[in-house]
């Protein structure tokens, strides 16, 4: 067991378990504050997009609205439907919440502020984040509610489909990092360490080398988080509220906490992998305080874009969503990975990677735009034509005819 390096701000040499405890408390506090702040900001930002003012009554500028909501949720009655499967229903929020909590471990907030610097950080993040889905499916099934079950099935289908392109475009980045590490005479081991990935972006953030990768990663993040335009699993007009319809009070708030924490984490990971995380964009060595500010600035910018997309984009249909992932994003990300591998293997410069990626991104945008144009033109001509039947949710009732 190697000696545990203590965090900068602790300053004292403490036993392992006290050190771990401090870090856990720190993460829990960060999680809570983050969820409260993001909910408030989302309501305010959405309100501005819709020409409203949002919450104003509680506290200055309505800033205590989230805290008031949290208090209300804590004091609400915890209702369980009589026909629900007791243990599955009651344990589901924890299965959804704990994995998200565990993802905090390898996140590099600055060069040294990491809970534990895991060598396999990136793999770990996606491995653990996938567990979240077990809680979602348990909630949907345990509630004994058709809408909850449909929401859970949709969430599972969506998460499985969008995780693949997300992981593949990240492999593209990891290939570049690995190539650089081996050029320096070292082994490629450590290329999946999030901190090493951030460290490699002192001169150019990877978004310049992999614009397509960043676009696909963010689309995948939207889908993984069930955020509009990919919010079919929790779409109020279709499945009432999705997998957590039957939940109330503190259990419901656990799902909410998990959702907003996952939002923060996926965005931090995205900005670490593609925007350089704590690194200054174009080659400046900056101190510790500024590194945190850079992380926060990049993360907030991306979160703002996600809120923005919620305000302006309409919801897709579930079959369109699945088709978009499997027929468009997945081929594009595979082409991206293969192109990176071939260029790097034959010693092409990194600028070639950037150009191919940009060309692929433009092709993707053109494809989507052209498809949208033809669809909207076709819709006017043949109004009586049947829309494509959703292929995933077939005519079989997944609830098993109850």
């Amino acid at each position: 067991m190697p000696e545990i390096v203590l965090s900068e701000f602790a300053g004292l040499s403490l036993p392992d378990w006290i050190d771990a405890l401090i870090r856990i408390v720190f993460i829990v506090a960060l999680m809570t504050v983050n969820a409260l702040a993001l909910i408030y900001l989302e309501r305010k930002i959405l309100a501005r997009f819709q020409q409203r003012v949002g919450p104003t009554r509680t506290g200055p500028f309505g800033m205590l609205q989230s805290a008031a909501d949290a208090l209300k949720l804590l004091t609400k009655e915890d209702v369980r439907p009589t026909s629900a499967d007791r243990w599955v229903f009651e344990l589901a929020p924890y299965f959804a919440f704990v994995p998200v909590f565990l993802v905090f471990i390898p996140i590099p907030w600055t060069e040294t502020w990491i809970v534990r610097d895991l060598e396999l950080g990136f793999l770990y993040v996606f491995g653990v984040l996938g567990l979240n889905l077990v809680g979602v499916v348990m909630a949907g099934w345990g509630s004994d509610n058709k809408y909850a079950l449909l929401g859970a099935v949709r969430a599972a289908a969506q998460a499985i489909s969008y995780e693949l392109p997300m992981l593949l475009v990240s492999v593209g980045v990891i290939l570049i990092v690995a190539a650089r590490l081996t050029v320096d005479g070292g082994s490629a081991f450590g290329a999946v360490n999030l901190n090493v990935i951030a460290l490699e972006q002192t001169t150019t953030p990877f978004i310049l080398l992999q614009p397509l990768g960043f676009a696909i990663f963010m689309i995948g993040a939207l889908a993984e988080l069930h955020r509009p335009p990919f919010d079919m699993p929790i779409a109020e007009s279709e499945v009432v509220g999705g997998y957590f319809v039957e939940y109330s009070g503190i259990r419901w708030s656990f799902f909410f906490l998990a959702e907003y924490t996952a939002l923060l984490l996926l965005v931090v990971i995205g900005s670490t992998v593609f925007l350089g995380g704590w690194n200054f964009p174009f080659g400046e060595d900056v101190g510790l305080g500024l590194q945190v500010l850079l992380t926060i600035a990049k993360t907030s910018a991306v979160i703002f874009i996600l809120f923005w997309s919620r305000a302006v984009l309409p919801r897709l249909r579930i079959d369109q969503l699945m088709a978009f992932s499997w027929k468009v994003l997945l081929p594009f990300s595979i082409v991206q990975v293969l192109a990176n591998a071939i260029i790097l293997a034959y010693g092409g410069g990194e600028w070639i990677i950037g150009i191919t990626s940009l060309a692929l991104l433009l092709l993707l945008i053109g494809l989507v735009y052209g498809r949208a144009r033809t669809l909207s033109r076709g819709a006017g001509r043949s109004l009586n034509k049947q829309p494509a039947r959703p292929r995933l949710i077939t005519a079989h009732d997944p609830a098993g005819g109850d």
Partner: protein
Amino acid sequence: MDGVGHHLAFWSLAVITVGAALGILVSRNLIHAMVMLILSFIGVAGLYLLLSAEFIAVVQILVYVGAISVLMLFAILLTPRAARDNAETAMRYPGLILMGLVIAATVFVALETDWGAVREEPVAESARIIGQSLINEFVLPFEIAAVLLTAALVGAVALARRDDEDIDAHEQSLTLEGREDSGGSS
């Protein structure tokens, strides 16, 4: 393995793994069994971690828990009779025989193995070593596994694909239903 922490971790992980595995056998509900299976997988991943095989542990979680178990859950949710109790099956006695054989093999291996602790240091950079041996030493099994997976994929598509006539008839019935519904409800 030394230190109280290691022993504590090992025994709690062992209890979780074996207990959850027993739970799979005992529970009569498919979803309960799945949740138990996931717990058992997580316990095994923890045991890998204790053996300093971080890469295998992470891949165990990523593949077995994150992908395979979720796909199985997904399949169960899409199966019409999944909610029914998992009580009787015609394969009971063949299953018992198979179980006896597996138990016999496990006991034989457990008794034959030398359980002395390995004195060597745990391998650092296990991912690199695994990757190198996969494409050097064990490239043939690796390729055969790839072919097998491709065959499984093609087979699954062939099984899931219905004939065109069926699809037409199915869609016709759907549109008829849709019309009745829209006439009745809205």
